[in-house]
């Protein structure tokens, strides 16, 4: 059976694909920023040692890490309106990506903070700094530096997770692809093209994060 593939019909929709790509990048970068903020705040809360808030943070981490991203995004998009919280597709997508990535970031960053020698804290206290200033000024940067490779792979995973946001019709690359599929019936060509684009995209994200890492954490430790 000769297979009749027509990639041109997909590629000539490049303006839409470009829009999808740029929106995917926006979703990914916003999601990463939110995840990083949640990650740092979560660790700071755990470090403060208040039992109730520590328990809440741990519960959040366990729930997010043990349920699928798809169910999380469905929950935010379809269930929260019944509690009076109504968000647009793309805001939902960023929130879901940030919460999901944030839970993983908490685990990763905590490992980094644990790796910072205790003497750093003690030196901070000896200088008369408060715990939260020590965390912010002294501990955070070497902690992030120690776990930056894990954080990078988690953020690449977050970028790939943006594809799932198509399930709530957020505007991004996969949903653009699905629209092209609906109009051309070229399912394989569409998804093959998208796969190639995602592969390039994840390589770019990895390269970008490496550059950021080099610039931020390039200093001698000893």
């Amino acid at each position, binding site marked *: 059976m000769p297979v009749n593939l027509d990639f041109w019909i997909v590629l000539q929709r490049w303006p839409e694909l470009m829009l999808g790509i740029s929106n995917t990048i926006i979703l990914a970068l916003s999601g990463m920023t939110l995840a990083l903020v949640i990650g740092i705040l979560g660790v700071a809360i755990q470090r403060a040692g208040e039992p109730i808030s520590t328990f809440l943070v741990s519960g959040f981490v366990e*729930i997010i890490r043990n349920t*699928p991203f798809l169910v999380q995004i*469905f929950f935010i998009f379809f269930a929260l309106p019944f*509690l009076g919280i109504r968000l647009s597709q793309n805001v939902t997508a960023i929130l879901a990506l940030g919460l999901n990535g944030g839970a993983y970031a908490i685990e990763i960053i905590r490992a980094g903070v644990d790796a910072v020698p205790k003497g750093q804290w003690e030196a901070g206290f000896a200088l008369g700094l408060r715990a939260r200033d020590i965390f912010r000024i002294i501990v955070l940067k070497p902690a992030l530096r120690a776990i930056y490779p894990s954080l990078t792979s988690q953020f690449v995973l977050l970028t*790939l997770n943006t594809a799932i946001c198509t399930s709530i019709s957020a505007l991004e690359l996969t949903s653009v692809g699905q629209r092209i599929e609906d109009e051309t019936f070229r399912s*394989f060509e569409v998804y093959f093209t998208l796969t190639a684009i995602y592969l390039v995209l994840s390589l770019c994200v990895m390269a970008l994060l490496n550059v950021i890492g080099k610039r931020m954490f390039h200093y001698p430790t000893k």
Partner: protein
Amino acid sequence: MGMNEFVFLLNGLKWTILLTAIGFVGGIPFGFLIALARTSTHPLVMTAARAWVGLFQGTPLLMQLFVVFFGLPLIGLEVAPWLAVGIAFTAHASAYLGDIWRGSIQAVPKGQSEACHALGLGYGSTMRDVVLPQALKLSLPATIGFLVQLIKGTSLAAIVGFVELSRTGQMLSNLIYKPLLVFSVVGALYFLICWPVSLLGRRLERQLTTGRR
């Protein structure tokens, strides 16, 4: 939500577990081959395995499902949806498990295989009798961790139209119009399967680190 609706969800759960089992059991032999290829000294074999892993780790699982789902008929394989999705998860698992096990094989000190070489053992015996038994122990926590990832990953089959737990939840939510309740129950069901597995993985990891101290 009454008993009938709950049974409906459990029926979806059955498919989630079946899909996970297909992907995991299928991924084990192929992942093993990938790990051996990745640690081989033959440059072509090594590069091919590396490309395979990079391909699956650099693209969304959802795209992998779509490409396999629509690609199989193009190469003349008209298979049932569950099998198509199962093949996709198997390929996905083979790449991830292959990479995890590559790491564990490389984590076994090099002196071990050098000692085997000095004793005149061949590749087969070195791997079977010396390296792999040690690598197996090292690989368990990450392998269990991937199992959790795979259970959650099967939810994406819902987007391809396969009826498993997430899709069942979506259908039920549309039917009885109680998304808050339905998605809470669906999430709780996933949590009930994933959490014990996560805890097991964490326990194995702790045993491993204390054992090595």
